[in-house]
Each structure stands twice: as structure tokens, then as C-alpha cells.
């Protein structure tokens, strides 16, 4: 039984969530092949091998550097057949989800998304997935021969001890029709830690009073090597860009540490952060609901506490 992993990269660097997907595949047993599309930095192969892939199929076609959903799914379908795989593993992402859905039909495979555990196979093929935006889990049986699993971040540790993989160029012969739409431009925050990938996230809410005070959040984030996020009203008021908004209707994060500053902890915000390992809340109101979801907290004025915290963190680094 072979497994194919669809790996995504950001400017040629393989995403951590994709490496996690590779390690997940390795745990399933059987031969693990990864498929990479577009221009990837050569030294990335070793990381993919270390995470657990024995073989990499590289589709060099530069047109795939952009995340065209149809073209990516067509290419991955070809790689799946080429690898003789039975299972496809990928990390949940805005591109991964869209590609996985089309592949479920192309490959006639059963699909489970938001997977948070390795399968148990004692009684059928059963995986645990997160549902109700992290408020619950469902043990789900997948009865099809071919399977696709979209893995939620932080499901397992990325392996680092696998051997050098073999790399093979794969021609998939994409036609113009496979690019059913045109990507006319991209806009991207450069150099920052990507929010959905981040290990530490520092988020600010309406308690920050205005965009001019965001330096407070950014300094703390910098000291921690964190990505920055915000609550919905903050992005609604355009203090921060939309892609930073965390919660039910925004980004769902799963960092090891989530720091919430001046955010009340409305249930819709919590829905985006409930997969965090540790939560720290800084709020001047001791009754703020966020404290009930937190591991650590400070009741105090953010304008006083945050600069001190930033200094204290710098002091130990």
C-alpha cells in the first residue's frame, strides 16, 4: 500500500504543515512518495526525506508556482496514478482543501478533512476529525478503497531522521485547459511568519484602542518570533488586514502558544484558537470570558503590561 503526499511550498520552501503531512504518511506504513509542483529550492528535498518520504516526484512546470486549483489537482491526480498510491495525505490549507475536494472526485476516493489523529484500523479505517470549529470531535469511518485525508496542523511531530529521498522529475503534460482560470496577481506579506503555520501567535483586540498602538503587539511578537493576529472587529475596522483575523469566520490557528491581548474571548473568537496548546490572556477586565479558556493570564492594562512582558522575554533570549 503506497501513500502519496501533496506538499505545498511558499516561495520554494516547503511548508511545515506539509512536512507534518509527510510524517503522518510515514506513520501509516508502506511506501511514501511526495509530489511537489513548481519551482522548489533544491535543498528542500532533504527535509522532505527526513520527514519520511522515500521518493519525491517533482513536476517542474513553472506555471504551477501559482496555486491554480484545477491545474494542481490535475497534476496531483497524475502523480497518484504514477506512484500507484492508495492513500493521499495533505495538510489543510486554502489551496489544499480546494485541491483535495476535486481529487476526491477525480480519484473516486473517500475524503476526510480536519483529521487530528492517526487512523485506527482494528475495526475498519477510523480517524478522528475536528468538527464544529474545534468545539468537538467525530470518530469517522472511511469505507472506500482509495482515501484522502486532509490533516489539521499539530496532529503529530515532524520527523527529522529519514534518509535522503530519491527525486524523480515527472512530466504531467498539462494543457491550457487545465488552467481554467487566470491568476492575475498576488499580494503577500513578505518575510513575516505565516499565521496558519506559526508556532506562536500574538493577537490584539479592540482593547488596543487603535491601529497606531499595534507596535505593542508587533514588538511582543518579534520578541517571541511570533506571527500577529487580531479579532474580527479589528479587521472590520481595517486596523489590520483581513487575513489576520482569527476565529469562527477567520483563520483557525493551532500554535503551541497563543497570546491574546485586549480580546474579550467571544465564543466566535475562541472557535479559531481552541486548538492552541497554551493560551495566555492579557485583559484589564478580570471577568473577560477569555480567562476561562486560558492557561495563564494577567489582569491588567495592556499598555502597561505588554511592554514589560516584551522586555522580560528579550531578557531571557
Amino acid at each position, binding site marked *: 500500500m503506497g501513500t502519496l503526499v501533496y506538499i505545498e511550498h511558499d516561495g520554494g520552501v516547503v511548508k511545515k504543515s506539509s512536512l507534518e503531512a509527510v510524517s503522518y504518511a510515514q506513520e501509516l506504513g508502506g511506501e511514501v512518495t511526495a509530489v511537489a509542483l513548481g519551482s522548489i529550492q533544491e535543498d528542500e528535498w532533504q527535509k522532505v526525506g527526513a520527514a519520511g518520504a522515500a521518493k519525491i516526484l517533482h513536476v517542474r512546470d513553472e506555471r504551477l508556482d501559482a*496555486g491554480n486549483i484545477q491545474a494542481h489537482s490535475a497534476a496531483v491526480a497524475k502523480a497518484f496514478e504514477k506512484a500507484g498510491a492508495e492513500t493521499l495525505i495533505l495538510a489543510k490549507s*486554502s489551496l489544499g*482543501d480546494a485541491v483535495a475536494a476535486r481529487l476526491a472526485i477525480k480519484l473516486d476516493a473517500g475524503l476526510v478533512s480536519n483529521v487530528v489523529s492517526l487512523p485506527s484500523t482494528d475495526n475498519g479505517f477510523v480517524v478522528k476529525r475536528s468538527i464544529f470549529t474545534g468545539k468537538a470531535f467525530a470518530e*469517522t469511518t472511511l469505507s472506500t478503497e482509495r482515501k484522502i485525508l486532509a490533516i489539521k496542523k499539530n496532529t503529530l511531530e515532524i520527523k527529522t531522521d529519514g534518509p535522503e529521498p530519491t527525486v524523480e522529475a515527472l512530466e504531467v503534460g498539462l494543457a491550457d485547459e487545465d488552467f481554467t482560470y487566470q491568476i492575475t496577481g498576488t499580494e503577500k506579506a513578505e518575510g513575516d511568519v505565516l499565521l496558519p503555520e506559526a508556532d506562536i501567535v500574538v493577537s490584539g483586540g479592540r482593547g488596543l484602542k487603535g491601529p497606531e498602538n499595534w507596535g505593542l503587539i508587533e514588538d511582543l511578537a518579534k520578541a517571541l518570533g511570533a506571527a500577529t493576529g487580531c479579532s474580527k472587529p479589528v479587521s472590520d475596522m481595517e486596523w489590520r488586514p483581513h487575513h489576520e483575523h482569527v476565529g469562527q469566520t477567520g483563520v483557525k490557528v493551532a500554535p503551541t502558544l497563543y497570546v491574546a491581548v485586549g480580546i474579550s474571548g467571544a465564543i466566535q473568537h475562541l472557535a479559531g484558537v481552541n486548538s492552541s496548546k497554551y493560551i495566555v*490572556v492579557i485583559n484589564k477586565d478580570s471577568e473577560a470570558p477569555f480567562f476561562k479558556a486560558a*492557561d495563564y493570564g494577567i*489582569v491588567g492594562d495592556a499598555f502597561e503590561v505588554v511592554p514589560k512582558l516584551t522586555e522580560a522575554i528579550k531578557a531571557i533570549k
Partner: protein
Amino acid sequence: MNILVCITHVPDTTSRIQFTENNTKFDKTGVQFIIGPYDDYALARAVELRDQTGGKLTVLNVGEAETEPTLRKALAIGADEAIRVNAEPVDSYFVAKQIAHYAKEGDYNLILMGRESIDFNGGMVHGMVGELLGMPSVSPVMKLDVDGDKAKLSREIEGGKEYLEVPLPFIAGCQEPIAEWKIPNMRGIMSARTKPLKVVDAVDAKKSAEVKAYALPPAKGEVKLVDKDNVEELVKLLKNEAKVL
């Protein structure tokens, strides 16, 4: 332009999630059901586009009779007609097959859905329907303007966005800020009562994923509060206890 909007009937975002029958059934007691928030964005944009270009706006839900008030609400918000595919929406493939089947009958120029349902959060149905119908599928879409036989969109990607031009017909999974949620007015509510709501049978489709049991996350322990004048204590806890620094 004829537009199809697919909506889910889901627990309100503030609902407490609980299960019964030995954790095999979702407990609907006291739960208020709403149009999925992302579907609500899709519907709001569809109403605007229909008003601009004319044509018919149809809403569709795959669900049992209990979802009809949700469909009526969509009619009150501005849809012209509703279709309910009478079946329990058990898995995304099954739902996608139903939508694809009835979408083919309707000859729509545009099919809008939510980025994801908020019960099962798959974010999968639009892509499946796209593949089943051989149409492009794009998600999550933040902006959508129709210009003749193509549309200009922006799609959210990790850390930014992408701008696209997509030929009609296609399928989009929508999210904010594509449009502002619309609240039904009195006239809308009155007219919704007489707008057509058609109930149709489900077509045969396999169900590949089945839930065996539900579970709730373990309860969170008590928060450890640190004095605001002693932030060093918090740093110590994060370093030595949580081991995250």
C-alpha cells in the same frame, strides 16, 4: 444571470455543542439553527448580483424537513425560489452529488457556496461539485464582480490574497468581506411565504464517510493568574512549566 446559492442549516455560532445517545447523536435541544455564516455571505452577494443583472436567484439545501425555516429565511433575504433535496446530509460527497445533479437541471451561470460549513468544516463541497460539473471551483473568495462572461475575484491565501479572472459558469466558496450580511425586512418576510419552495428527492449516491462517535475536548483546567507587576513570573512559567519559550 441565474445564480444558485447552496446553504447549510447549522447551529448558531454561540451554541453549546453536546451529544446524546451514548455520544452518537448531536443534541439539538435548545439549539438555534441559522444559515451558515459563510453561506450567508454568499447569499448576500448573490442578491446584489441578481439585483444588478436581473435573472433568477435559487437557494438549495440538502436536508430534512426541519431546514425549511432556514430556506424561508433565505427567501426573505431575497432569493426567488428554494429547493430542498430531501435527505440527511451525511457526508460531503453525498451532498455534492445532490447539488451537482440539481445544478445541472437549472442551467446556472454562477454557483455560490460558503467557504465551509460550520458543523463539519470540510470546505470540500464546492470543489467536489466543480469537479462533478467540470467547472472551475475557487475558494475562499473575498471579492467577486461579474463582467460579461467572466468574473474578477480575489481569493484569500495564507498571508495574503490572489487576484483571479474566471470564466462563467463557475463555483465559488465565499467568505467576508464579499458582502455584508443582509437582514430580512418585513416585506421580504411577507413575500417569502408565497415564494416557491420545492422539495425534491435525493439521487442515489454512495456515502463514504460515516461518524461512529462524537467526543468533546477535555475540560480546560483553571487559569493561572500572574500579578501584573511580576511579568517575569509569566515568562518563567512559559519557559519552565509550559516549555514553549
